[in-house]
Structure formats: C-alpha cells, structure tokens
C-alpha cells in the first residue's frame, strides 16, 4: 500500500466481522427496517436480495455510516456504529447508484482528489491512481472528464474510487447495472479479489447471472425483515434464484 501523509502510530486492528442486532430504521411512521439481525464475515462475499422497498438500500446506507439506525446495534468488529463513526470513516468503500464522482473533472483528477482526502501523500497518490486506472482499464480515458464517459466507464472509475483507500468493508448497490460484458467480468474479478483479500464484501444485486458462483452468503430481505439466510459458497445463478424465490 502507498505511504500516507500521517502514518498511524498505533495501527487499528481490522474488523473481521460485521454484526447487526435488531436494527430498525423508521422514516416518519413507516418502518424501512423492522429488526434485522445478521452477521457478515471477512472473506465471505455476501449477496443481499429482496423486492423493491425491502430495505436493502437503507441497510447499505446504515452500514456505510451515511445513515443511523433508529434502534438496534451495528458492530464493526468491536466498534459500535453509534459511538465510533469517526474511527470508521475511511475504512468503508461504497459503490452506490450515483458514481460519487465530479462530472467536470477527469477520472485521474477525481481519483487523485480522493486519494489526497484519504491521506495519501502526493507521489504515492499519483502512483496508486496510476495503478488503479490501469487495473480498471481506464488509462486511455483517464484524462477525459467523467461527464464524457459511458455508464460502464464511469462505473469502472467509481469502483477504483471505492477500492483506492483499501477499505475493510466494501458495499455495492446494483453494481452491474448498465455494464457491458467486459466491465461485468472486471467487476467480478475485483469482487473476488476483495473477498479473498479478507474484506467484508456486501453486494445488493438482482443480476444473478453476474453474481453466479460469487457469493458465499445469501441474505434475503422482505418488508424490512431478514426472511432467509444461506451460507453456501459458489452457488450458480439458478440455485440463487431458487433460494430467493423460496424465501419470498
């Protein structure tokens, strides 16, 4: 990993488990999450599924620390979401619906900006950004403004932004939408690599063909509740679909 501006004096132990206990989220009177309890483990890629309005995006927002549960507990290893928000910042990568990139800036400028924000010094930031641009196949387009890129190319840059700071938890919300075959394969490789590197990876997706064989953990939400969980590695698309349908 590239050298940081302020190297840590005491390195925090990475969290290897994410535990949710009776997590509820209420918007007005409407419960989006109605008491979800679930564990996610490092090195085990999780697929989160559910019909529209099941609470998947709300759960991802809470796990990313961009939202707080109305009640219940979210534990990142020993760190409690409610008390350790500042300590958790910078340790979570999010690939959301929106790319979280500045449209007027190029891919390189975006990645450099975020690298510096994550504490990379100038030269290591350049090196890390160059390496990530190559890894997501965006070297030739690196200096074009993001607004001139296709959806698939933008998603590649967004993936590089999410992975650049080497997060311990990687959250992805419908990451395969609008991607071509090559971009899907790239994303599959990166998801597998992140999981094998010991990260906690949670993917919300309905593209079971793209997710085929990837998840080791399937969690199904319905009306804000966890209705099924399966821990079976390498399930193909058909088996994932079968378990999903059975859960609903």
């Amino acid at each position, binding site marked *: *990993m590239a050298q940081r501006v302020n190297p840590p004096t005491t390195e925090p132990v*990475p969290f290897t488990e994410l535990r949710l206990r009776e997590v509820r989220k209420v918007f007005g009177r409407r419960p989006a999450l109605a008491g979800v309890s679930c564990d996610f483990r490092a090195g085990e890629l999780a697929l989160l599924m559910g019909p529209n309005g099941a609470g998947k995006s709300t759960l991802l927002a809470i796990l990313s620390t961009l939202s707080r549960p109305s009640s219940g507990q979210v534990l990142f290893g020993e760190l409690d979401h409610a008390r350790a928000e500042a300590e958790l*910042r910078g340790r979570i990568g999010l690939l959301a619906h929106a790319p979280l990139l500045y449209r007027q*800036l190029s891919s390189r400028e975006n990645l450099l900006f975020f690298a510096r924000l994550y504490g990379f010094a100038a030269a290591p930031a350049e090196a890390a950004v160059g390496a990530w641009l190559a890894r997501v196949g965006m070297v030739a387009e690196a200096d074009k403004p993001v607004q001139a890129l296709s959806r698939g190319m933008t998603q590649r840059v967004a993936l590089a932004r999410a992975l650049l700071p*080497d997060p311990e938890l990687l959250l992805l919300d419908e990451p395969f939408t609008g991607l071509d075959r090559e971009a899907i394969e790239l994303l599959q490789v990166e998801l597998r690599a992140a999981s094998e590197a010991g990260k906690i990876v949670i993917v919300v997706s309905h593209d079971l063909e793209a997710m085929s064989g990837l998840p080791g953990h399937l969690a199904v939400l319905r009306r804000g509740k966890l209705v099924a969980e399966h821990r079976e590695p390498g399930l193909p698309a058909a088996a994932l679909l079968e378990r999903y349908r059975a859960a609903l």
Partner: protein
Amino acid sequence: MPPSEPRPSPRAPSVLGVVLQIARKDLLVEWRSREILYTMSFFAVLVVVIFSFAFVGEGKSGAVAGGILWVVIPFAGVLGLGRAFDRERDGDTHQALLLSPASRAAIYLGKLLGVFIFISLSELVVVPLLLLLFSLRASSPSLLGGLLLLGTLGFAAVGSLFAAPLMQSRSRDVLLPVLLFPIITPLVVAGAKGTAALLAGPGELAGAMVWLKLMAAFDLVFVALSLWAFGPLTRAE
C-alpha cells in the same frame, strides 16, 4: 492481506491539506464550467448599472453606493453559494466527502474557502464599476478591502454552514436565503455603513474602523460557531 494482520488503516489527513484540496477542486470545477463566476458577476453588474441609472436624479452619494454594494454582495453571493453546494449533490459527491477520514471541520473550511474566492473574484469586477459609475473614491482603499474581505468571509462562513445540510432539501433554494439573510443582517449593515464612511471622505476613517471591528467580531463568532456546528448539522440521521 489476511484479515487478522494489522493494516495501515486510513488516517485523517491534515486539516490544511483537506481545506486546500477541496478549495482547489472547487476552483478547478469552476474553471471548467465558469457557471458561478459568470452568473454572479452578470447579476451583480446588472444590479449596479440599474441602480446607477435609478439614482441619477437623487444624487450619487457614498451612502447610496455603500448600500447598493452590500445589497449586491449577499444576493449575488447566494447564487454562487447555492451552485457550489449543488455540485456536491449532482453526483452525490458529498457522500464521498463524508465517507472519507477528513474531519468535518476541514470539509467545512474547504467549502468556505472556495465560496470566499468566488465571491471575492466577482467583487473585483463590481467594486471598481460601482466607484466608476458613482464617480466616487475610497479615502482608504486598504480599509475598503478589509471591509470587503471581512464581509465576504462572514457571508461565506454562515452560508456554507446552512448550504451543506440543506443540500438534500427540495426547498433549498427558498430556505437558504430565508435562513441566511436574517443572520447576516448585522454584517450587511456594518458593511454598508463602513463603506459609506470610507466614501464620504478622510474625516470618516475612524467611523469606518468601528464597523470594521464589528465585522471582525461577527466573523470570529460565526466561524467558531460554524466549525462546531457543521459536524452535527451534516451528521447522518
């Protein structure tokens, strides 16, 4: 990397580093689009020209010019302020900022610096034009610069504090001026009075200094308050 090994986890970068990175990014985005500067300057120039014709028969005094200037600055400023924060909403980039290990105070100061620079650049166009159209001279250009600097800083400080949490509100375009203008009224009054004193002649320098000190006190209070309040106001709900 095996999960049990300690890893060099991201650490908060320096406050100054984050402030400069965010301001630099805002300037770069503006350089590419030129929306904010063109919009603010066009609006400000238009208002100054309209007022200069409107006051032809009334006599173009320093008091009138001071009043016009300190009406133009906040109204043009609110255009730039809104757009500067809208850009963070466009690609949900504010979420990426909030996910980073950068402190909330540093993010706030970075946005403040960007807005301050945008408004200051439009003042470079408006102030000379106003003095030219009203055939006035400041008895102390450096003191006038000081008034403008403190007024712009105070406006940007309070504006950035409110613009950030309002980003997700559908009524943000209405709410921002409604929240902002009552709070900055003392700053605007002090700016108008101080400018009028400077344009009245060298005999009024002491009076201008009093208004300058009042603006400095306002800035001190509101920058400190905003640094404390920005975190809770942008915290996840």
